[in-house]
């Protein structure tokens, strides 16, 4: 087990370096002079030259990359052009909101998807199955921002059950915070639920066809135990793979959902930074979001080993 963890962890480092390289190169390729953006109205040739030397922008590009990487690792992420505050501080300030949104959305997705998938699989080709699968293909085809707009329209504007675009931090009032997070979490979670439900159904169908399920029934186990203990556990293994891949979509979706609901998370902040050309923020946003994806993939791999001990041995 520990060897497996170590092997996965060792894989993290080159991938992380790859990510930083892509982000660094992307920032290099952006047209325009970063010094001009930093100094804005205070621009003079002399000041620009001083800043260039200070930031190492007069050095060769590979050297710049190494210097930049060093600053990144040591926590010196630069200053936001817009807010004039340290980038790392801004990111850490907003990270909890995004993490809460992701956790709630993933929880909502799984809580909806697993029962729907299981019920569809144990009653295949019935009306129930067809309606569930029709709903899921609709769910997959819905863009988050349209689903979010519809939920806002119905539950905030018309029924007025839930607040629209405002936010209460979790530290201030948990109940109010959850009321504000419900629609964003559903907006982000429902399309994922649709996809996961289809997968749970398919892998349940496959598992329930196997001999050991017949054996479990033959020894007189209740149908409930056969499905929930014997079939579901094996059916969840391929599902976990997909859930892992879905985290990438969740991160992308969180950017859209945060912008739509005006949540003060990293996603909406990243988009603001892009639209206003706050490049130190943009690169921090890209690195944090992709590193989060990287870490979650490793976590998913670890979950496998719990679900399926055979994987550890390979």
């Amino acid at each position, binding site marked *: 087990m520990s060897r497996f963890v170590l092997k996965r962890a060792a894989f993290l480092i080159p991938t992380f370096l790859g*990510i930083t390289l892509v982000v660094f190169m*992307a920032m290099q390729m952006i047209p325009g002079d970063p010094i001009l953006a930093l100094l804005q109205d205070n621009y003079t040739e002399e000041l620009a030259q001083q800043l260039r030397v200070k930031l190492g922008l007069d050095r060769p590009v590979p050297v710049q990359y190494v210097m930049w990487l060093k600053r990144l690792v040591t926590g010196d992420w630069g200053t936001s052009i817009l807010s004039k505050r340290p980038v790392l501080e801004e990111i850490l300030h907003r990270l909890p909101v995004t993490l809460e949104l992701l956790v709630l959305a993933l929880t909502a997705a799984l809580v909806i998807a697993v029962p729907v998938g299981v019920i569809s699989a144990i009653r295949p080709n019935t009306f129930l199955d067809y309606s569930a699968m029709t709903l899921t*293909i*609709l769910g997959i085809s819905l*863009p988050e*921002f349209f689903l979010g707009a519809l939920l806002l329209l119905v539950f905030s504007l018309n029924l007025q059950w839930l607040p629209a675009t405002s936010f209460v931090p979790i530290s201030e009032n948990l109940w109010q915070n959850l009321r504000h997070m419900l629609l964003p979490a559903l907006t982000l979670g429902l399309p994922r639920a649709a996809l996961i439900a289809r997968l749970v159904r398919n892998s349940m169908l496959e598992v329930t066809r196997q001999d050991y399920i017949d054996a479990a029934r033959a020894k007189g186990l209740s149908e409930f135990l056969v499905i929930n203990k014997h079939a579901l556990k094996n059916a969840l293994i391929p599902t976990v793979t997909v859930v892992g891949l879905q985290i990438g979509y969740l991160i992308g979706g969180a950017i*859209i959902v945060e912008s739509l609901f005006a949540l003060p998370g990293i996603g909406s902040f*990243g*988009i603001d930074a892009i639209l206003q050309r706050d490049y130190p923020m943009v690169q921090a946003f890209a690195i944090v979001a992709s590193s989060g994806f990287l870490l979650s993939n490793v976590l998913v791999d670890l979950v496998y080993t719990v679900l399926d001990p055979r994987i550890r041995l390979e």
Partner: protein
Amino acid sequence: MSRKSKTTEEMDRQSMIRLTWRRLKRRKTAMGGLVVFILLFAVALLADVIAPYGPNEMIPGEQLRAPSWRHPMGTDILGRDVLSRVIYGSRISIYVGFVSMLMAVLIGVPMGLVAGYYGKIIDQVIMRAVDIMLAFPIFLLAILIMVVLGASSTNVCVALAIVYIPRFARIVRGSVLSIRENEYMEAVEALGIRKWRVFFLHILPNCLAPVMVVASLSIGVAILAEASLSFLGMGTQPPTPSWGSDLRDAIGLMEINPWLAIFPGSAILVTVLSINLLGDGLRDAIDPRLK
């Protein structure tokens, strides 16, 4: 001898297409998707003829109208006919969906072929680059590329193509590796057939099934991505009609006129749904094992 084998090969390929089509025809949902998609395609092509107004034509004194006979989908804040904008908007969606996937396939498939066929250092270099690209969440990578390229619908195509190239390269490489294990590849080598013939006649056709399935389903994802980028203000720029950016403009006005959001949003839903239904059917028809 070689002539005869060529004709049987052609026959096989034709029968595979025919077989796929026959299986596809049996699936009602897939055929429904196909019909709807053909209709949407026709709407995009004939937008100039069908649309009652120009996409940017502002009708004085008719701002924010609810749906009526005169304006079946109402009008927006500038007095533009929403139906006409939705009709013209289909052009951007379909253009981005197809062109980006075409670019990704045209570059990604040869990359995968080369990596899988030559192996060794070439494979290592290509696949490590692919791994790094795949380490980014799809939408984040698209956003990052848009930051570099600048917002426009053509750049959205380029960004989505770059995002999908590693995905196709990886699928094709995997297929090539398994095809090389087949006995007929030994026969091909023993016969001394030229490399490019091996590539195009013996390896490529056998890789295409999974590529077609992934490409057809990814067109839907690309259309969603274009709409999402435009929704965030990073894709198609106003006043060009795009469902995503029109929906963005509608959000603030939803309380007054919800139809402004509902029609462009439904257009995205119907388009992506038709592609997903068709792609699902195509996957089952080409190779049920891929399910």
